[in-house]
């Protein structure tokens, strides 16, 4: 490859930089290639990013770690690293270890020792580093790093959507864009452009990019802009002298004003200061001029120097005029959608659950099948469906005294409508009532996964002073077992041979019931543990990651219990119960007996 990127290059963007990602995708669209961003890494959230490709909106996946990005998107070999200056180093080191081919780092203010260490490691592994403290690089019509090239309007004017004949490398990220425009206006535009960044020890130096331009037959002219500070130019001069750089080069080193300043002025670039006479702008311009590099009298003459050099190549027949490609249009009024749905679709002839028509579900007549599709976007094995139905049945009601039913009864008696009463009942479902299913599942799952023995797990919970979710019952005990648990358990054991988490929960129960007879595995605990064994492995991978946080299992409880709550509400309506008022003698006022003395 004689360019940094090709039209199939894809990248990982580290950091949720939506605008920059959109700029990359717009560039792809305008260049007529497929999207170049595979995945975004955001350590704080895996919520996907909404982006456009042309006029069409789509979701870009987000993962939490670079490792995960690498394993899921092995073809992406470029990292566009937007991490802050404090974490940029860790990303670069990990990227080098994972053998990424190109890593471009945007952050400014990376300590010099860090970037020097990156350089040493990257060299060992043959990784090309760009930056830090830059906007990146661009291969015209092929691939753009981040914000390189500005808005769509500007990138088209700078002809970045199609290759020209100039290889450009410079220090400043901001100036690179100005230079792309200058080159486009005075020649056929760039083939590739790199801004190495304004630091004293950038990941790659100016010279690192020149042999590639020399090898690339499409590059006819090289343009270099540099600044006061550093000695990169000596390598360029050496390469020209020994004949390894033969193409015409136009260059300019800025920073002649440094000598005029009456006091210490640190330019905006950390590397822009001269440690010796040889590092001054004047000395470097003269050195480059001495080996035939085309150096204008000042920056203001740079455009003309490029124009003349290009004209000369044209006169020699080495370059010819280009046919401008037809550029697809991006609508100006794109706006992101506010709602998003990935489980069902009512746009066609017939509405669908997932990818399947509702009528199919109706014909099959199974509610758990619809649940599987709408909740988990999948299909489940027949015994699993059956088991889910048993769970829904088991949790449908538990008499009028429990919180949910009681609240619903009180609301219905107060004359509230059915929906309000149902809501008041459902609102009680939480960590203490019915909502222990997810908690229990999570606790048993992680204890088992982390290799704790049941005894260690019990000890650990005791040490933390926490109740073990899914263990214990108000009324039931080993002497008076919960028949719901027995039935579910019985079915599960016969149909699912491998239930390690449930087995673990049962062993925990042996320990806890040895202490107190009512510390049994309750219905929440059994449902939680068994569904981790039965349901979790059947779910799509991206759903499994957030299995516990999403609250699916409490959802099952809420769904089943709605049946019972509605029953209680209808019951009260039929009975025309008057407004409920709690008896005073059942309330302790103040501190109780003491305050009455």
């Amino acid at each position, binding site marked *: 490859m004689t360019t940094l990127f090709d039209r199939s290059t894809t990248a990982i963007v580290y950091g949720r930089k939506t605008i920059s990602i959109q700029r990359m995708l717009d560039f792809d669209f305008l260049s007529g290639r497929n999207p170049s961003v595979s995945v975004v890494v955001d350590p704080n959230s895996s919520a996907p990013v909404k982006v456009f490709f042309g006029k069409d909106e789509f979701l870009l996946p987000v993962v939490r770690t670079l490792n995960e990005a690498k394993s899921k998107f092995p073809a992406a070999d470029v990292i566009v690293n937007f991490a802050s*200056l404090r974490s940029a180093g860790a990303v670069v080191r990990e990227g080098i270890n994972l053998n990424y081919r190109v890593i471009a780092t945007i952050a400014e203010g990376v300590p010099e020792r860090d970037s020097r260490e990156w350089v040493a490691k990257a060299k060992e592994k043959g990784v090309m580093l760009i930056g830090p403290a830059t*906007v990146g690089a661009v291969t015209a019509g092929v691939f753009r790093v981040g914000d390189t090239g500005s808005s769509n309007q500007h990138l088209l004017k700078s002809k970045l959507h199609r290759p020209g004949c100039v290889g450009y490398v410079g220090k400043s990220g*901001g100036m690179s*864009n*100005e230079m792309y425009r200058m080159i486009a206006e005075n020649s056929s535009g760039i083939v590739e452009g790199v801004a190495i960044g304004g630091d004293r020890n950038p990941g790659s130096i100016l010279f690192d990019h020149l042999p590639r331009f020399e090898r690339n037959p499409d590059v006819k002219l090289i343009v270099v802009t540099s600044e006061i500070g550093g000695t990169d130019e000596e390598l360029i001069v050496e390469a020209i002298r020994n004949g390894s750089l033969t193409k015409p080069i136009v260059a300019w080193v800025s920073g002649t*004003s440094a000598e005029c300043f009456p006091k210490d002025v640190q*330019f905006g670039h950390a590397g822009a*200061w001269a440690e010796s006479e040889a590092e001054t*702008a004047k000395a470097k311009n003269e050195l480059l001029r001495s080996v035939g590099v085309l150096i204008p009298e000042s*920056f203001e003459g740079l455009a003309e120097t490029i124009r003349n050099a290009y004209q000369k190549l044209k006169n020699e027949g080495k370059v010819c005029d280009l046919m401008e490609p037809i550029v697809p249009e991006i609508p100006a009024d794109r706006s992101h959608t506010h709602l998003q749905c990935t489980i069902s679709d009512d746009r066609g002839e017939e509405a669908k659950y997932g990818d399947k028509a509702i009528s199919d579900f109706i014909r099959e007549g199974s509610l758990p099948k619809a649940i599987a599709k709408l909740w988990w976007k999948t299909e489940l094995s027949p015994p699993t469906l059956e088991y889910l139905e048993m769970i829904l049945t088991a949790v449908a009601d538990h008499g009028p005294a429990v919180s949910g039913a009681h609240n619903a009864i009180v609301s219905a008696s107060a004359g509230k409508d059915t929906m309000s009463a149902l809501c008041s009942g459902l609102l009680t479902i939480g960590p203490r009532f019915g909502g222990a299913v997810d908690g229990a599942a999570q606790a048993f799952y992680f204890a088992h996964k982390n290799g704790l023995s049941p005894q260690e797990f019990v000890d650990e919970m005791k040490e933390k002073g926490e109740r073990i979710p899914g263990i214990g019952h108000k009324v039931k005990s080993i002497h008076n077992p919960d028949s719901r648990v027995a039935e579910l358990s019985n079915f599960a054991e016969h149909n699912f041979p491998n239930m390690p988490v449930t087995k673990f929960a049962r062993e925990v129960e042996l320990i806890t019931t040895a202490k107190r007879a009512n510390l049994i595995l309750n219905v929440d605990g059994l449902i939680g543990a068994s569904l981790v064994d039965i349901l979790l492995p059947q779910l799509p991978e991206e759903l499994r990651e957030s299995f516990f946080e999403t609250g699916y299992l409490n959802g099952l409880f809420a769904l089943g219990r709605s049946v019972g709550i509605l029953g209680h509400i209808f019951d009260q309506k039929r009975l025309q119960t008057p407004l409920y008022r709690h008896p005073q003698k059942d309330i302790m006022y103040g501190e109780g007996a003491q305050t009455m003395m």
Partner: protein
Amino acid sequence: MAQKPIREAQAKALIAVNWPSEQPGRPEIRFAAVDSRTDLNELPNSQPWLRNGKIVVKADEMFGKRGKLGYVKIAENWEEAASWISDYRGKDVMIGERVGKLNNFLIEPFIEHESEYYLAFTCEREFDVIHFSVKGGVDVETQEDAIKTIRVPLGSSPELINTIPLSLQPTVHGLFQLFRALDLPYLELNPITEVGGKVYLLDTVARADTAASFRQTKNWGNMEVPLGFGTEITPEELRIKEMDDKSGSSLKFVLLNPNGRIWTMVAGGGASIIYSDAITSQADHKELANYGEWSGNPTTDEMETYTSEILTLVERNADKEQVMIIGGGIANFTDIKKTFAGVIKALKKHQSNIKNLKIFVRRAGPNDEEGLKALQATCDELGIFCVTYGAELPMTEVVGMAVGALGIGINKGINGEVNSEKLIVNSAPPKSSNEFKPNDPITLTSYPPSSA
């Protein structure tokens, strides 16, 4: 955020405080630092060794060749040292072409010694480099052949050569570790000497990488990296610096000459250098009032404060003709409309005192058309002369216009001769136009002499 020289006292304090406890060869470090507020009568009470005979006093202002220049004093006793300090403290002195105040001094016990070694640690791209010479001292530059260098790959330990006396090697190892661990890209000890089995750092020069300050808080303590000799910070610079420190964007401002008539607000580290070059080549460099740079998409509020601080300085010479160049290349991601909204707010706030200011704008990037239009409209409304251009105008062309407006253009010919040339701006300000061609003489009767 770059390498910055620190004071000798700071360098020695860093070495003394951070010397690895398990590392032998710890140098003898004893000093008292004096600044503009130090009570010289009180000092020997807290540092009784100052009364124990001969002491050395040095100006500690980050310039070299102090012995030759007369800023080192070997005093027989404390009284002599104190009176020498009193003579110099607070005085302006000229070092090279730069004038600055002597405020900081370093006092150390005088060490009678014979050998003078030269030891320095520097950074190359892929190596840390140790330089050593047995012929250290003031003229080490003239003895380059005697300097031996050891290049140590990053991450490896150095293998010292036998040119370095065995007894000195543990100290060299320790200093090398500190050079790495403290993010000092440059550390020079010249001379370093041994007396009676103890090592003394007779002179120390160091630079700190200020980009590392976020992770050096423990090692560096509350060290304040000095601004440099002859550089005193003004309240405006300080306020902008404090804003910059807190911002994710970059907002830099250095006041070069408060009476200069050319003010700049240039965006981008690279472009700001090129604008400085253009100004100092087209006008007397004393006319350049400031160096500055803003980039990284600052907020509207930040831009308002930044502009406002600069306009406060412009107002000090409100009756004088002055120009402001708001320049920059084609931004990659800085939003021109949003950032210019801050400039506009500041202009409105200061409108009554900046009637003699002419503003020249060249800036492009996301939302540039709207930003430029809004700025032009505001200036027209406030009656402030302003021209605005986008990418259609070569980047530094506004410099010629601004210099021309002041009538202070100079033409530095190829042979270095300087021709004055009075440039006059037409009374009607030019409007931005996409049809503008650099060679069209649309606004000026004559033009920056770059093509002359």
